[in-house]
């Protein structure tokens, strides 16, 4: 238990001492939100609610996804590539502690991002969420980060340390746009709207939108199921990558 807490503590310390990596992850979703919701979205509606309210849910999903893919995926890829993960594996440390700490970090980041979006939305976008609604949306988004941590982990084990950041971007940005996180899903062509059903961020954003009654009305069980299946699939891929490392030599 103490090991787990210390791993989390030092992950936090590392993040705080590297603001050049930490701040962009925290601030990008908020800046995008300001741009699309506050500057261009004012007076407009989406999904039957104010654009600024709709986009809190989708940029919340966007931020959660970024924290998981970068903090977790790129972090693992780099430490694995540098031999640091291996150095830790020679100790009796339970390997789960390493992953749990990184996941806890992604969740802390996700919480901060969503709270920042709430604050900006309320003060600049006229968003009015009741406290229970805000708490529910935050809970859904942070819980949903598990699926993206698993995706990040799978990428972290499949790609090399140097290509990790560009490859994660290649997955992150198109997936976000195609899931209707930047502009509402209804604004995408019909074919892309159907394709979004295959993308995990779409399902998380629809669950979050459900809190404010702005989802497309598909069953929440479908969305939750898709996120669980995604998490299992990505974890299996990550595990395969982890096992492959055991049989291979780097450097």
């Amino acid at each position, binding site marked *: 238990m103490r*090991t787990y807490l210390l791993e989390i503590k030092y992950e936090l310390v590392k993040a705080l001492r590297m603001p050049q990596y930490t701040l962009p992850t925290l601030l990008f979703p908020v800046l995008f939100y300001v741009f699309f919701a506050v500057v261009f979205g004012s007076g407009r509606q989406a999904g039957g609610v104010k654009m600024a309210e709709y986009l809190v849910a989708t940029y919340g999903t966007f931020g959660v996804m970024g924290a998981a893919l970068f903090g977790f995926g790129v972090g693992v890829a780099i430490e694995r590539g540098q031999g640091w993960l291996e150095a830790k594996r020679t*100790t009796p*440390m339970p390997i789960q502690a390493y992953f749990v700490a990184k996941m806890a970090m992604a969740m802390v980041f996700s919480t901060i991002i969503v709270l920042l979006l709430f604050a900006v939305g309320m003060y600049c976008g006229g968003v009015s969420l009741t406290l229970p609604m805000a708490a529910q949306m935050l809970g859904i988004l942070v819980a949903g980060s598990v699926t993206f941590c698993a995706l990040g982990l799978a990428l972290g084990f499949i790609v090399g340390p140097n290509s990790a950041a560009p490859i994660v971007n290649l997955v992150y940005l198109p997936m976000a746009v195609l899931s209707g996180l930047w502009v509402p899903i209804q604004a995408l062509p019909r074919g892309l709207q159907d394709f979004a059903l295959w993308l995990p961020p779409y399902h998380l954003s629809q669950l979050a939108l459900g809190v404010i009654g702005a989802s497309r009305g598909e069953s929440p069980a479908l969305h939750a199921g898709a996120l669980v299946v995604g998490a299992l699939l990505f974890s299996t891929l990550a595990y395969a990558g982890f096992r492959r490392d055991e049989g291979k030599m780097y450097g």
Partner: protein
Amino acid sequence: MLWGMSNIPAQFTGVRKNYGTVEALRGLDLTIRPGELLSLLGANGAGKTTAVRALLGLIKPGSGRVEVFGGDPRDARSRTRLGAMLQVARVPETLRVREHIHLFSSYYPDPLPMPEVIAAAGLVGLERRKFGELSGGQQKRVLFALAICGNPDLMILDEPTVGLDVEARRALWKQIRAFVAGGRSVLLTTHYLAEAEALADRVAVIHRGVVVKEGSPRDIKGDSATLEDAFIDLLEAS
């Protein structure tokens, strides 16, 4: 002694490992005895690092057995008695020396007290420095500290002094000698013959994945003028 445990720190029995078509280990037999510093000496690509990785349970041998104190190297129980200093490209640079040691100590049931670790690794006065602010020699000493902080019975040092200047190398030698003087065992891989001669109780020369000669540095040297001559003769003969 627990059942199934052995006081032999480490034993390789007929260990083979291929990477694709490359045979890294071709039936390695090697024993590390209690209280000795065994130096595994070989050229680059001889199989030293693969042997170390098999001993640490980081790779699975294709065939043969590797045991650490009679157990599977991947068991937490075996790892508790091991400390390793690997060739790590980069260590998280924003953590301080004592923070790194604090975290690694928490992995072990019976770690050494922090001041002892700091003293044994020659890091007095550097506790609050961030890893990224240290010199190359100081960084190696932090890795050494992480290897000994769990109070291991067997320490694995994989080319610990590569890239260090003479002074830093000798400082680390001193710390390694102090560790062995406490009755513990060390496996040290190196391609510096002087290092093997200065530190080892026993030398095993590895070439193309098998041990070609084993003995005290004096035995290995035989009639040759230096260990280096003996080493080159050996490689040419095998």
